[in-house]
């Protein structure tokens, strides 16, 4: 028995700095917004799927399922914590979706929380590096900006683009995402960097050459929450259910073992194709994409792997404006990770938050006419990939 699945309410905290809250307290804030817009009773929620990456390191906190459940008044129900690095809450969402689709539960809560900003940059950078190969990559001092710096140089060589030219092209990702992030009241950089120039990106502090500070997403505290249920249940309770039309997930090992595949982000192509197939769609059916832009180059290679542009053309596309809100495929009109912030374990369901709001016409700072959206969340150096397709149409 397979059932259609839909999103009811969604919630997101302001992204940025929350040193005054624990992870469960932060999550509760996002949950209450999602719950209050779902028109359900607390007892309707049968299970909790919670994403968190490094609670042990940032807050000395593990076993978070139970603490989350208790914080929001749902102590006693099954509560799971999922970890898939930056894709943690997208993995949680996909598992929740599969459970509802296959009849295990009718209505569940999904979400995530993370506190990397409060942890500070040295601990935050080390915590993020735990998503790399612990023995053979971290020993050299490789970091996540480092991974995408390696990929940027490889991209330039592979497609015969002078490195300086590539730096200029990908800087447009930062300019674009900061523009929308500055407009998004829930973004870490709300009212900041809205008029960033390409030169500002090129001239900001070098983090891992050739990537500068503005090529990178920030360290962020934040939480997000989504309530999903069978489509029939959702239609009885909310005016505009947003239907989950397809999901995909793929995996890979260490960066160096993937060899040339890293330029093409092949696990992502696999994951996206799985989602398109389930939805009965192609990239042409997607009106807007929320893509894992942990770094400028990351958005570019993702836009290619997901089928929006040919391999090697993604950097041109952003420079030409094709991925801006008025372009042929708007990417990250909520600011993305770069402009909105990246509270790792909360990022996947925060993408869903923006996608659902946009499809309902409630993302009032940016106007995009969209019926179908895709999210894309990357955990590690292509270790965990998740794509989710959402639509206003049930079929």
């Amino acid at each position, binding site marked *: 028995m397979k059932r259609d699945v839909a999103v009811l309410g969604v919630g997101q905290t302001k992204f940025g700095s929350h040193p005054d809250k624990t992870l469960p307290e932060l999550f509760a804030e996002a949950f209450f917004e999602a719950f209050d817009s779902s028109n359900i009773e607390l007892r309707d929620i049968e299970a909790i799927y919670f994403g968190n990456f490094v609670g042990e390191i940032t807050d000395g906190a593990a076993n978070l399922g139970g603490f989350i459940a208790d914080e929001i008044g749902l102590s006693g129900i099954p509560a799971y914590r999922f970890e898939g690095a930056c894709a943690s809450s997208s993995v949680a969402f996909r598992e929740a979706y599969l459970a509802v689709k296959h009849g295990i539960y009718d209505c569940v809560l999904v979400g995530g929380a993370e506190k990397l900003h409060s942890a500070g*940059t*040295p*601990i935050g*950078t*080390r915590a*993020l*590096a*735990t998503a790399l*190969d*612990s*023995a*053979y*990559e*971290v*020993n*050299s*001092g*490789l*970091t996540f*900006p*480092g991974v995408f*710096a*390696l*990929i940027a*140089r*490889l991209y330039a*060589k592979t497609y015969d683009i002078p*490195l300086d030219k590539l730096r200029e092209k990908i800087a447009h990702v930062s300019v674009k995402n900061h523009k929308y992030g500055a407009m998004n009241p829930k973004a870490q950089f709300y009212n900041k960097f809205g008029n960033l120039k390409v030169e500002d990106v090129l001239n900001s*502090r*070098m*983090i*891992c*050459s*050739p*990537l500068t500070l503005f090529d990178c997403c920030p360290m962020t505290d934040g939480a997000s929450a989504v309530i999903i249920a069978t489509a029939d249940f959702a239609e009885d309770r909310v005016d505009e259910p947003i239907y989950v039309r397809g999901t995909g997930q793929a995996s890979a*090992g260490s*960066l*160096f*073992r993937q*060899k040339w595949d890293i330029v093409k982000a092949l696990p992502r192509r696999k994951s996206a194709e799985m989602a398109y197939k389930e939805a009965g769609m192609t990239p042409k059916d997607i009106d807007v994409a929320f893509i894992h832009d942990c770094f400028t180059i990351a958005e570019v290679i993702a836009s290619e792997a997901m089928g929006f542009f040919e391999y090697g053309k993604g950097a041109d596309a952003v420079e030409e404006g094709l991925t801006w809100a008025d372009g042929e495929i708007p990417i990250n009109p909520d600011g993305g990770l770069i402009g909105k912030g990246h509270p790792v374990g909360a990022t996947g369901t925060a993408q869903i938050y923006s996608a659902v709001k946009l499809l309902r016409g409630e993302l009032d700072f940016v106007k995009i006419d969209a019926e179908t959206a895709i999210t894309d969340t990357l955990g590690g150096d292509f270790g965990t990939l998740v794509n989710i397709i959402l639509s206003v149409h049930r079929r």
Partner: protein
Amino acid sequence: MFKDFFSALMEGKLIGAKCRECEEITCPPKSTCNRCGSRNLEIVELSGKGKIVSYTVTYVAPLGYDREVPYVVAIVELDEGAWIIGRLDVDAEKADNEDLIGKRVEVYGKEFPTEQFYPDKQRRVVPMFRVVE
């Protein structure tokens, strides 16, 4: 397993796992072949030579590595086909001002202080790449 790889490296030997089914060299070795997944592997000594595929100068390091900045992390494609990650022993400035991709290198091991999260609690060995052309 992983300690054997680094012990060999400190003795001047780069080891890999050769697949008896498909001939693929997996380096560093893992439990199965990197191409076909076979468990039918034998440990072999590799040439320790290869060329630079990509690199980055790291200016912001994680906790435990901050005293080593700036350092150059690189991916090298070994002559036997496997890719490995280590550090280039060139100046940060040289790495940022020249295009080193494609340069021939030799691999050797260097010991660094371990840190609280590294799996080897005694030492941290890093594959180092010496440019030979």
